[in-house]
């Protein structure tokens, strides 16, 4: 079952690599036509990374990036589970920088968040990160300073298992998905603050109204507009920054650059997919070829065959594809609002180009996305809503009934700290009836006619390590005012936060996220994996980032093991930058505090 064939980097650069990105890219990010026939299994324990500005060619146009070692994406960092590694990060910029190791269980002072875990890396300075992590899989790294992430400061991490990889494959690739703009990211942010829908060219128009009136009757079309208008919200508010400015990239290649990978028909090919975008949630699919999800956020899951999945910013998925046909397949990463996509090719020969499918119709949100009590409404706008509103996964056989929906609070046998959120300048909407949506595939994928992954289907391959019930539960509300482009947790922007969220070392607790906004938010907790309460019993998927859908309420259970201050934030970059961020302080428990003091003293000794 364990049959990994190792592929060495084949042939020299061919004439096809004349497309500029290839020549500037590290081997793993190149196309097959640029000599990449699969990843090399080389690991190392020491890495030298230099953060700087450098010219790039994106989608055929020249730009300037901020990134690592002069390549976009940044170099692949590959090492072995448990190895003590050293990363020397030198800042050649004229501003501070940082690197955060996304999903890695590092000591918190190595986590790389300026102002939370360390002071950042000053211009001209070299900061040495040192750690060994007890995990394997696909991860990534990126800047946590300013808006550098939007400018190209991101790269992949692969940690090879210490012993044996439960995933068998013949060939592997990393696919780093990202979004690039030639605009200055601060300008992008400023535009959103001034005219929040400045990048949205997919609003409903007069023509849509007429078409709708014709299809559903004037009354229904009018009532629908009336309701959205009354709320001052848009059912097409799906992505803040769109294809109007973004060039969507796979390993630095736009569709026109045609990143291509090769396979031999019949091979099991492992794709390590990383959504390293600043703002883009992607729908990932390979028309005509099923994908078997084998890992989520780095950790292995029970194999799940799907045709498509929605991928939040900062999530990673490993999938196995096994093409048997001797032809080219498209790999499509489509922006959730369908304002653009990046298409790559997998084929039996280097340089093949698969047909790029046309962009699908723009999705339209429903009142359910607003968290309205739709039992009280009978508007035609609701369409598909009713499915999936039950507690997660009733259609799944053999699973325990786990009240992961809103009923949970009533029968929770642990104390629940609820919060009252009231409307105000920073909180435009309070979801009246948030529900579990783990059993839904995500915005726009409800009716695509093929198998789309739902969170409720994910099962950890390994038994969850901590099966204690939570000792308590806290709620965190996701709040916003799109019109003012304000984003926050519990109505409080990060700039106004006066105290961190406290976890106590050793405790097991439940965190319930309630999305009062109309957008899906990929929420990321640094420093720990959490068990998504999705009906999986003792095999819940363990993740570091989870998309909370509009008007959704979901929970995860987490064991506070690693003492330190850990960032918690929406991984949509401009949402974080607007204030959708907090800090979770895992405080040492009294009996462990002494031990910790000693550890810190030792550490100090080493540093001096």
């Amino acid at each position, binding site marked *: 079952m364990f049959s990994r064939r190792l592929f060495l980097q084949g042939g020299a650069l061919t004439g096809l690599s004349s497309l500029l990105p290839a020549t500037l890219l590290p081997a793993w990010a190149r196309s097959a036509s640029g000599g990449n026939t699969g990843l090399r299994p080389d690991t190392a324990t020491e890495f030298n990374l230099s953060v700087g500005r450098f010219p790039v060619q994106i989608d055929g146009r020249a730009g300037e990036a901020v990134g690592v070692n002069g390549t976009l994406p940044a170099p692949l960092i590959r090492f072995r589970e448990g190895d003590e590694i050293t990363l020397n990060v030198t800042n050649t910029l004229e501003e501070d920088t940082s690197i955060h190791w996304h999903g890695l269980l590092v000591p*918190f*002072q190595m986590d790389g968040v*300026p*102002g*939370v*875990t*360390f*002071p*950042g890396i000053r211009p001209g300075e070299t900061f040495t990160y040192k750690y060994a992590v007890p995990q394997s899989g696909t991860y990534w790294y990126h800047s946590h300073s300013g808006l550098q992430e939007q400018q190209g400061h991101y790269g992949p991490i692969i940690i090879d298992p210490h012993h044996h990889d439960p995933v068998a494959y013949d060939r592997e690739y990393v696919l780093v998905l990202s979004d690039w703009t030639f605009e200055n990211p601060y300008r992008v942010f*400023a*535009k959103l*603050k*001034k*005219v929040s829908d*400045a990048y949205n*060219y*997919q*609003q*409903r*128009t*007069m*023509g849509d109204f007429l078409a709708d009136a014709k299809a559903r009757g004037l009354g229904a079309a009018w009532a629908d507009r*009336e309701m959205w*208008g*009354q709320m*001052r919200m848009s059912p097409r508010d799906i992505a803040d920054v769109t294809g109007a400015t973004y060039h969507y990239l796979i390993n630095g290649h736009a569709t026109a650059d045609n990143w291509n990978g090769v396979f031999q028909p019949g091979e099991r090919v492992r794709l390590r997919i990383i959504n390293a975008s600043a703002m883009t949630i992607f729908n990932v699919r390979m028309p005509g070829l099923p994908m078997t999800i084998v890992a989520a956020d780095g950790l292995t899951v029970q194999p799940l065959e799907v045709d498509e999945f929605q991928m939040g910013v900062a999530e990673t998925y490993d999938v196995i594809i096994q093409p048997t046909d001797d032809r080219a397949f498209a790999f499509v990463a489509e922006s959730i609002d369908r304002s653009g996509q990046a298409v790559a090719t997998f084929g039996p020969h280097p340089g093949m180009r698969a047909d790029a499918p046309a962009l699908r119709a723009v999705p339209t949100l429903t009142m359910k996305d607003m968290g309205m009590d739709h039992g009280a409404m009978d508007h035609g706008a609701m369409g598909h809503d009713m499915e999936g509103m039950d507690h997660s996964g009733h259609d799944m056989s053999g699973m325990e009934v786990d009240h992961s929906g809103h009923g949970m609070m009533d029968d929770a046998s642990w104390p629940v700290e609820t919060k009252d959120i009231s*409307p*105000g*300048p*920073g*909180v*435009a909407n309070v979801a009246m009836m948030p529900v579990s949506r783990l059993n839904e595939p995500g915005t726009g994928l409800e009716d695509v006619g093929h198998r789309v992954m739902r969170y409720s289907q994910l099962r950890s391959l390994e038994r969850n390590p901590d099966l204690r019930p939570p000792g308590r539960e806290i709620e965190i509300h996701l709040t916003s*005012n799109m*019109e*003012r*482009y*304000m984003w*926050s947790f519990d109505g409080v*922007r*990060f*700039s*106004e*936060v*006066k*105290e*961190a969220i406290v976890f106590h070392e050793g405790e097991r607790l439940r965190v319930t996220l309630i999305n009062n906004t109309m957008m899906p938010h990929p929420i990321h907790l640094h420093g720990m994996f959490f068990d998504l309460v999705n009906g999986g019993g003792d095999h819940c998927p363990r993740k570091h980032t989870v998309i909370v859908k509009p008007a959704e309420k979901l929970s995860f259970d987490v064991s506070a093991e690693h*003492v*330190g*201050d850990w960032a918690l934030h929406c991984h949509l970059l401009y949402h*974080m*930058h*607007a*204030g959708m*961020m907090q*800090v979770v*302080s895992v405080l040492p428990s009294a009996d462990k505090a002494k031990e910790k003091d000693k550890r*810190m003293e030792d*550490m*100090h000794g080493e*540093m001096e």
Partner: protein
Amino acid sequence: MMRKFCFTALACVALCLRAMAQDHSGHGAATGDKPWSQADGYFDPAEMDAVRQHMQMHHGSSRFVMFMLNQGEVQFTDDEETGVWDAGLWYGGDLNKVWLKTEGEYNFDAGEVEEADVQLLWSHAISRYFDLQTGVRYDFEPDGLAHAVLGFQGLAPYWFEIDGAAFLSEEGDLTAEIEAEYELRLTQRLFLQPRLAAAFSAEEIPERELGSGLTSLQAGLRLRYEIKREFAPYIGVEQHSAFGATSDWIEAGGGDADQTWFVLGLRSWY
């Protein structure tokens, strides 16, 4: 009179800046209690503190400057041509802003500015969609008059943009204006914008030729094409009507109390 205005304006700016500073006094740094500090065990606490404050500030309390030319247009009939502007500049964050607004008219035939005012306002978000604005207005033309301003600006249900204010002049006269705009999206770049603006006066003000009650109404329709979001030329029509004593004064002066203008202009922001 100009001096008096300058004093008032300066006082207003001082108040604004003070209130904006208070905007930031909210977070933990200023109170001396650190919201988190475990990294102090590994790094210089003073440096951590400075970086944390800077970092928090830039995650939620960034400030911006916006320039908005809402109307920059030529209005014309068969025998008259007027240049009209309505522009604003603000500086600030999510909740508090300083606004500078200006409106005016330039008569091409006479070659002179007929009306011009500037408002300096302190704008504070008071609800989900509305800001309260208060400050001063100074009319450079026609009569060099200063006013205190109390107004609001925001987005009403059904996407009506509303901007209203009451003005108390240094002569003690109370007037008010309210303006509503709606944007009908014909395509993703082509907008039809109906606009209604009404002016009121609490009593007759002979020296400004204003009657009491509703003094005038402007009803416009502009068709705008957004070449870029920030740059949109438009064409349109606007009906100006005066009422009551106001209308009588205009007609006594040989003018028309009801006039239809064609407009050609540019809307732009940065």
